[in-house]
């Protein structure tokens, strides 16, 4: 009896504690669990909720471009888009490759998506300027640019550098320009400025040793204590000047912030009313077990919230629909179990054995039905596109969590109620007497 009361009270306390954690966030010392209302560190809201644009560009490369070359070029495109977004102060934006020749850009809260599409998708303008602003080289006079690591002088110290390869025509102009620049060192005008879309991305100085001859080799090195990453980025930016294809916008979805906000509040409202309706129904139909299932449902909601914040799930509008739908499905298992318990009681079993066989017999049906729904969610996760993946995640998550809470929490609480001598079978929804 005492043990049962203890179990019962402890379960409620655990739910309350987890609920508090999800709502307020907790600092555990070694790690932090952010609050569910904290959209910066906790749940990330999708662009369809906070407003923003998702733009997909396709590289208009030749069909027969070798896979390796294509993937190298697409990497360059990703770097370029990142750089352009940074130039415009859109540092919150995300860029990622989506498929072999497509790149997707996600920009939160942007008012003019068309401007973004046009600037991001425009052809890159790469120029080499001298310190007086005169154009020395255009992008098409650079044949290649790669990031390298190795010893570059007689000291043998290895470092990161960018290796440029110029075209014959480019080299001729470059030799002249470097000669002039090296000679102008005393005036501080010995730099070659590498400019991309009007933004200077690097200004290496020409070493004074070239004052007589200029740089005469086709292979030009740019050094400067780069990290490997910096060298890679600079090389990619320069290589952009000779990217062999343009970008075409193939998909764009842009949602105003207001619309997203309305959608968010009305779907949260729907979720809360949904939970309440389900609870009222369960209590009305199943009495005491109904109340127990409500506790299990609360536990499920809290667990779902916990998983969302811990794994920083990206929550889209369909994702919220998935959560709401899985709340309805979460009590399915309880309905199956409780109906079974009612029948066992009617057949004249004692309460405890009715509960035991109710759980035991309902298990296979619950397992089978949840697995098939889970298969659907998994397939959707792997083959789905866009925001629908969010639906697959929350639905799949909901199925696993709801099965767990229905099978463990409900059973534990029901058993502890029986242990507390709450054994009037009327409370369990069975009529007095036997009608088998």
């Amino acid at each position, binding site marked *: 009896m005492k043990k049962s009361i203890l179990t019962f009270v402890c379960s409620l306390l655990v739910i309350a504690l987890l609920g508090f954690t999800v709502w307020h966030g907790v600092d555990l010392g070694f790690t932090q669990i952010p609050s569910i209302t904290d959209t910066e560190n906790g749940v990330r809201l999708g662009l369809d909720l906070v407003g923003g644009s998702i733009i997909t560009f396709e590289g208009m490369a030749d069909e027969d471009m070798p896979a390796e070359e294509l993937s190298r070029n697409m990497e360059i495109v990703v770097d370029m888009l990142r750089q352009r977004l940074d130039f415009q102060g859109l540092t919150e934006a995300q860029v990622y490759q989506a498929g072999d020749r497509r790149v997707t850009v996600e920009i939160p809260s942007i008012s003019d998506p068309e401007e973004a599409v046009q600037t991001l998708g425009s052809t890159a303008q790469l120029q080499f300027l001298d310190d007086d602003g005169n154009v020395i080289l255009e992008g098409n006079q650079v044949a290649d640019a790669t990031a390298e690591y190795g010893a570059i002088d007689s000291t043998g110290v290895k470092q990161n550098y960018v290796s440029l390869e110029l075209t014959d025509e480019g080299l001729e102009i470059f030799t002249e320009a470097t000669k002039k620049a090296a000679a102008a060192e005393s005036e501080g005008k010995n730099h070659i400025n590498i400019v991309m879309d009007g933004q200077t991305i690097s200004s290496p100085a020409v070493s004074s040793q070239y004052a007589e001859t200029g740089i005469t080799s086709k292979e030009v090195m740019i050094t400067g204590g780069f990290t490997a990453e910096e060298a890679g980025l600079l090389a990619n930016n320069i290589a952009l000047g000779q990217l062999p294809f343009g970008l075409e916008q193939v998909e764009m979805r842009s949602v105003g912030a207001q619309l997203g906000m309305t959608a968010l509040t*009305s779907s949260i409202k*729907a979720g809360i009313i949904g939970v309440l309706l389900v609870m009222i129904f369960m209590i009305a139909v199943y009495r005491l077990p109904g109340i127990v299932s409500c506790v299990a449902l609360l536990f499920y909601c809290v667990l779902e919230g916990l998983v969302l914040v811990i794994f920083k799930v990206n929550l889209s509008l369909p994702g919220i629909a998935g959560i709401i739908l899985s709340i309805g499905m979460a009590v399915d298992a309880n309905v199956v179990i409780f109906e079974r318990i009612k029948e066992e009681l009617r057949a004249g079993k004692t309460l405890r054995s009715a509960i035991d066989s109710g759980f035991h017999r309902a298990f296979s049906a619950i397992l089978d039905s949840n697995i098939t729904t889970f298969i659907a969610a998994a397939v959707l996760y792997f083959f789905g596109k866009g925001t629908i993946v969010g639906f697959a995640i929350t639905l799949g998550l909901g199925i696993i969590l709801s099965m767990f809470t229905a099978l463990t929490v409900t059973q534990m609480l029901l058993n502890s109620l029986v242990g507390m001598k709450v054994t009037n079978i009327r409370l369990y929804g069975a009529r007095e007497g036997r009608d088998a």
Partner: protein
Amino acid sequence: MLKTFSATKNFKYCAILSVLLIAAGLVALLAAPFGVNLFNLDIDFAGGTTFTYQLGEEVTPDVIDKVEDAVAEVAGKNVSAVPTGDGTQVLIKTKSLSSEDREKLHEAMKTAFSLEDDDRQDVQNVSPAVGKDMQAAAVKSSLVAALLMLLYITIRFDFKSGFAAVVCLIHDVLVMISAYVIFQLPVNMNFIAAALTIFGYSINASIITFDRIRENQKLSRRESYEAIVDKSVRQSFTRNINTTLTTLFTIVLIIFTGVSSLVNFAIPITVGIVSGAYSSIFVAAPLCALLKKHQKKAK
């Protein structure tokens, strides 16, 4: 009525009702490969551009005409404009427009209805190529899901119950597709999500009924198979109705949110769930009984 109802004896009426329910969906699906499109294909699959504007006035047929006039110069004649949301918003659908043309259309709308930039609530553009890819992904995911579930059901149940359960599944998805055709709901990536959800969920009720049949067969070997089926259907009736109700409570509320992308997603799921409850009671078990009877006769 519940105590005496026989699902097996009334099967022929249910069969007729089912055929009527799935007719529209079946016809639309069969017509699709022949280039006859009865669906309202959304830009996800067909390619195109959509705009949603908050006009701040009720979208009457006159307003629609004005919208169509305003955008005609940029987007041509082949434009659809329909009221959406609470009726003061308009959804404009055109062929896939370039970024420059989208800007022009936006300016034209702003001038015609003296709107601000913020009154454009969303704009979506999908090129025909991306639409094709999405179609391929949709077909692939439906096939993979169907195969996996068939496999699972065959492993867990005997062939005849498995077959009956799958017939029910297909039935429910077809009923859902009928709803898409009849109400001209936009067919997009949400359609695939709804279809797969119904695929996974509607089988629940059938499984519970079959589980019951399996159990009753062990308990009462003397009764005829039909009698066992009828008894099992009656016993699992409350459960099937109640589980459906709890799920309906939440999904129907999503319809009430009025968020158009969610509404278009929740309506077909609701139709599918109701159909799932119906088919598990009136189609799955009796069909299974029918199959077993033929098997006995053959012996």
